[in-house]
């Protein structure tokens, strides 16, 4: 895991992901300062929550994709050939950093947005924000796993990025509106869990419950295991060029 953490520290992509999130958060703060926080925590969701979700996908793809993009997988595996260990180390580092970054950015953003909202005689609701953080932790972890898995499936940085974005924003959205099977899409299951945390009228997490929490968790787990499993099979079976 130390090597993976060093890669994160040494490469520009994680830095730029973080920089983009911070810039968005600052822009959101400026907007809140100028025009107010909108309804509830709308401004924070748009300026902090959404960039963090995108950054989680990008970071998830990057954590495996960097080895394909830089053609360094053979070097990594000639230092330690245990592919399963590398697979879990990368997922662990990815999950830890995504969740840590999500929590820290939100916690730093909160007082600033509260001050900005206060200028307009409003406050950021603590309970609502706490729920937003919890929901973000879950959804960003899911996005990171999806991104990482699809980078492995495509064995490519660019391919992983494209497929992950297409999967999350197009394929899964299309799946979710299909009759019968749509309820079992990853997005619907995730939305149910997010709604379970934040309540059914939670802005971006707005959802009428389709499944119980246990059902939604099971559907989500199946999706993630299937995607990660596909990634693992590709990673385990493929020759390293």
């Amino acid at each position, binding site marked *: 895991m130390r090597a993976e953490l060093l890669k994160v520290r040494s*490469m520009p992509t994680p830095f730029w992901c973080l920089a983009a999130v911070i810039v968005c958060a600052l822009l959101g703060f400026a907007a809140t300062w100028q025009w107010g926080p909108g309804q509830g925590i709308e401004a924070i969701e748009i300026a902090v929550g959404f960039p963090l979700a995108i950054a989680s996908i990008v970071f998830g793809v990057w954590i495996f994709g960097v080895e394909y993009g830089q053609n360094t997988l053979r070097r990594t595996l000639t230092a330690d*050939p245990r592919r399963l260990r590398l697979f879990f180390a990368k997922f662990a580092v990815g999950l830890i950093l995504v969740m840590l970054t999500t929590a820290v950015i939100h916690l730093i953003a909160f007082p600033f947005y509260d001050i900005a909202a206060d200028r307009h005689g409003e406050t950021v609701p603590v309970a609502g924000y706490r729920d937003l953080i919890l929901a973000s932790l879950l959804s960003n972890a899911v996005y990171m796993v999806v991104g990482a898995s699809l980078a492995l499936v495509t064995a490519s940085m660019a391919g992983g990025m494209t497929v992950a974005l297409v999967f999350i924003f197009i394929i899964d959205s299309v799946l979710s509106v299909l009759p019968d099977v749509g309820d079992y899409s990853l997005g619907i299951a995730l939305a149910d869990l997010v709604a379970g945390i934040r309540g059914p009228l939670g802005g971006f997490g707005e959802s009428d419950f389709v499944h119980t929490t246990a059902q939604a968790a099971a559907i989500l787990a199946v999706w993630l295991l299937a995607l990660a499993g596909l990634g693992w099979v590709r990673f385990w079976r493929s020759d390293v060029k």
Partner: protein
Amino acid sequence: MLATFEGVGKRFGKTVALRDLSFAVPEGSVCGLLGPNGSGKTTAIRVLLGLTGADSGSSSLLGVPTGGRGFATAIRQTGALVEGPSLYSRASAVQNLRIQAAALGLKRVRPEIDSLLSLVGLTERANSRVGGFSMGMKQRLGLAVALLGRPKLVILDEPTNGLDPAGIVEMRNLIASLPGRGATVLVSSHLLSEVELMCDRVTIINRGQMVADGSIAGLLARSGAGSSYVVEVAEGELSLAAASLSGLGLTVEPAGRGTLSVSGPISDGSQLSCVLAGEGIFVSALARDRPGLERVFLNLTEGSGGQGAG
């Protein structure tokens, strides 16, 4: 033996990459793996390192079967530079070495990193991004990465690829110095002159099959190709010199103005000068015909090329 191949076979679809490949790398040697482009050198190295699975046969690294129990430990004692330097181009030279050290489980490596950067002549570029390095610098950094942790075996795949002549000389000297650091070296190349200068033994493969194996001197002696000399005499004495040497049963061919190429069972160059002096001919230059290994290589690879077809 630090690395062995026993009957290794590997196919990529319909293409046979390795066919019953067997050879070994003895400890303390600088062993050259020679073969034409596409002969299977890189595939053999990838199989040895566990990057590609063999379809048949087995290989071992430091006595441990590839992919078997203890392989992770064996590979940590092996440094590898496969198909060019595998570097994180957005990271600096030091960062690349630190990442590799962490992957190898090494701690407190800064002194070793500094020493390796000095060895490969990159101390002044230690904190520069690798993306801005020349090919030669990348190859040298790749070698430094391979040498981290003082490996017992260093495997270098075409380490002089893409280097200019000065870079080739630098790389050759670096590789030649590795046994002094206690490392055995397996170096693959299609540059015969480089292998001849760097290695003490050689394995020649063609179409995935081993066609010759042994010390370079032994290989040249066995083939007779090593006993080839270029003799320079006064132009007027060329015919007499040729006749004298032919009389010894040697093959004599004109090789330019006042020059003869002599091959056959020659113990050393003094034998030729002695014979010619006996005839009153004084040799103005006598040199061993350096492309000896090239001749062996061409003979062997052309010969088995036909056998290996299909």
